């Protein structure tokens, strides 16, 4: 008997007759875990949710929930019998019912446990939709419709909640507030959730685990911290776009050498023999600014990102390296100026490919 809450084993995910993802396996170990799936558009993230919900069938592998087979080549439990709720990215509210009726329809359809862990009124308040309860879907904004659909999914108290880009239409100012409260609500009610998102910060914040889907495969499935700091492939690095790969030579147990940056020290997460030529992952926070340093690089671009500036620096061999600098830094550097990098360069975890 499996110990996993949800088990997806060797499944090919297809939609509209096209195979989107091949041989995907992953588990959700505990009830109440939140899993975030990240990947570029069209890669098949939504297909995974639709298949788990029972809206698409599978031809190989199996999907089990609490040790019961939901889908396999032979079996297919209809969506209405799965107690899985899916909140769609696009507006899926019933257009002829008010927002309130939409939310309570779910509770009417399913005979819910009287010991309600989720109070609909609380959900409505949390998602800040009290004022639109009497309105019809065509009278509300896309963000409000998305929140109403999310409320409808939540109040049904599903065994598994699937959220497809749940906050993509929500205003940025309100998004973070909802993220905090949504996480609290999901944690308190112990609803196991899979969230599809393209926002890596959202995924890193909400997820107990994150899955990175690239080129028809689940490339990495790990804790958010590990996904960010220890990406397992160049493709994941490129997708997360949080650093660059630069050529380096392993010079010792804890050091590498790059022809432009010189010696770089730190802890390798994987052993490489001395003298190996590798590609080193350099993330924007790995380099520190130091005007007194004799390692000077040319500024080719500067982006203001509120709390940070991101400087793009050009090395002698024309590599473009991003560097974070706190925006309250004492002075700013203009494009074409020289920018000093503190030496020696120390990186906590050295990730190479």
């Amino acid at each position, binding site marked *: 008997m499996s110990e996993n809450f949800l088990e997806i084993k060797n499944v090919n995910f297809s939609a509209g007759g096209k195979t989107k993802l091949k041989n995907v396996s992953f588990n959700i170990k505990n009830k109440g875990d939140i899993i975030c799936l990240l990947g570029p558009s069209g890669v098949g993230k939504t297909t995974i949710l639709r298949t788990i919900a029972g809206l698409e069938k599978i031809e190989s592998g199996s999907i089990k929930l609490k040790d019961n087979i939901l889908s396999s080549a032979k079996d297919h439990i209809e969506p209405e019998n799965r107690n899985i709720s899916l909140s769609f990215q696009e*507006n899926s509210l019933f257009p*002829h019912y008010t927002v309130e009726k939409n939310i309570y329809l779910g509770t009417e*359809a399913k005979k819910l446990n009287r010991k309600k862990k989720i109070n609909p009124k609380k959900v409505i308040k949390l998602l800040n939709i009290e004022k639109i309860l009497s309105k019809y879907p065509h009278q509300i904004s896309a963000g409000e419709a998305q929140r109403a659909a999310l409320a409808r999914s939540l109040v*049904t108290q599903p065994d598994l909640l699937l959220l497809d880009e749940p906050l993509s239409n929500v205003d940025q100012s309100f998004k973070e507030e909802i993220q905090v409260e949504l996480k609290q609500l999901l944690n308190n009610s112990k609803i196991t959730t899979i969230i599809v998102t393209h926002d890596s910060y959202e995924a890193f914040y909400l997820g107990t685990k994150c899955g990175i889907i690239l080129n028809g495969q689940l490339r990495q499935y790990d804790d958010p911290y590990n996904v960010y700091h220890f990406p397992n492939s160049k493709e994941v690095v490129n997708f997360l776009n949080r650093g660059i790969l630069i050529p380096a030579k392993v010079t010792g147990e804890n050091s590498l050498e790059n022809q432009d940056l010189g010696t770089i020290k730190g802890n390798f997460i994987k052993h490489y023999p001395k003298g190996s030529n590798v590609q080193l992952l350099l993330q924007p926070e790995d380099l520190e600014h130091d005007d007194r340093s004799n390692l000077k690089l040319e500024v080719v671009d500067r982006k203001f990102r509120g709390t940070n500036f991101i400087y793009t620096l050009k090395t002698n061999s024309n590599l473009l390296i991003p560097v974070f600098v706190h925006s309250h830094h004492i002075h700013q550097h203009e494009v074409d100026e020289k920018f000093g990098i503190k030496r020696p360069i120390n990186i906590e975890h050295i990730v190479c490919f």
Partner: protein
Amino acid sequence: MRINTWYISSLLISIVVIIPILTVFSSFFEDTSNYFEILKQSFFLEYVFNSLTLLIGVMFLTFILGVGSAYTVSFYQFPGANFFKWALILSFAVPPYIYAYSLFAFFENYGTAFTILKFLFGEGNYNKHIPKFSGMFGLMLSISFSLYAYVYILARSSFLYQSQNLIELGKNLGFSKFKSFYSIILPAARPAIVAGLSLVAMETLAEFGAVDFFSVNTLTTGIYNAWIAFDDLAFANRISFFLLLFIFILFLTENLSRKKARYHLDTKGGFKKKQKIKLCGRKSFFAFAFCFILFFLSFLFPLSQMLYWTIKFPENLNDLQIIDLLLNTLYLVSLSSLVLIFFALISNYGNRVSNKKFLNILSTLSISGYAIPGVILAIAFITFVAWFDENIIKTLGFLSIKKIFIGSILGLVIVYFVRFYSLAFNGIKSGYEKMNIAVDESAYLLGYSKTRTFLNIHIPYLRNSLLFVIILISLEIVRELPITLILRPFNFETFATTAYISASEDLLEAAAVPSLCLIIIASFFILLTSKYILRDNDE
């Protein structure tokens, strides 16, 4: 393998509807009597020539009347504009054959026009000065005034949804009002206008009552005569085939001429409500006069003529079993609407949930029934029943089933079903198209089965579409003539058949009462639908 009941039901419905249509096509390969040879040498070319002349004339007139009136009420504000917006669709209540009776009766020797002149100016020889609207010209006018509303409704809705941005763009480019109209407004409304004209074309080719009244030989009357006079079903079907080919070429030409041009942009966020131009003085008077004359000629004139006769010859009112006729009409309307709605709903839902290409193609073919004239459908139905009875039923040793289907309410409802199935199917389909498929999926995920989703989510959602479809079907059935005439049971009359029979016996005065009743009932249905037909973007 699991049997999908929705799929099977939908498939069966489409097949039933498509049988008479296929019968017409298959008839082309059958032998006919030598009348075909005779007609080919004599009348056949006349049938084709007259049909073409009529078609071109009617399309030209309906284009001018429909687009002109739609443009006037959509772009300009003038006294009475809001009234004409809906009043102009009332012409639908007057079928071409009733318009023909009125037109003929008004201008005939010693007709209503004569009486008015006599009343105003005393005795005189007015007959030679009164124009005579009979034959092809009278027919064109009758059909055009009755059917221009198709073009009016569709063009108007297209004009209404043209963004102000488009019009402002014209001004910005320095276009005059006329240039803006023909190079921006008109091309953007082209699909809607063409759709309206296609409906007019189909109805014109299918028209029977008015064509018969003015004794113009067209393909439709040819079909009827081949069946009634020569008793040659195969020949009737063969002419039908040519008529269908005609309609098919019409559609194909339009589709090919369009190529890949798009006539609208997604208006998400870019739609700007149009500002109507306020007309004053002479311009305002002309706009009012144009709309009023059109409203008068298309609706008030035939209504008044029928009302005048009804008052002048009250004995006809007593001779007529109005209650019986009303009950017969309502009986047909309610039974047919119920059957049509029921099956069109199942078929639409079957298409939606099974999402099979084959079924979609079959459904598309099955709705072509509306393009086939009622005369053809009725004859095709008789042909099919006769063939089935002869080759299947009798071979199996059963009693003939002809009486069950021919000259019975059942047969009548089946052919109405085939003819008006596209109205019901498309009406419900357009309701469904506004509903994202994610709505169904959400319902399943909330625990609703397919049947419960259909009953609890779809039916309430489609309520307005269903109501609209019912009214539309009712309107069509009240006005319908040839199918009822051919397939009705003995002694079963409607307002339409009674009016036709009186008129064909040269008792036009007697046709007035049933015609008036028909106009009143049809107007009632039109007023009920106007809310849907004339939905504005600002309403």
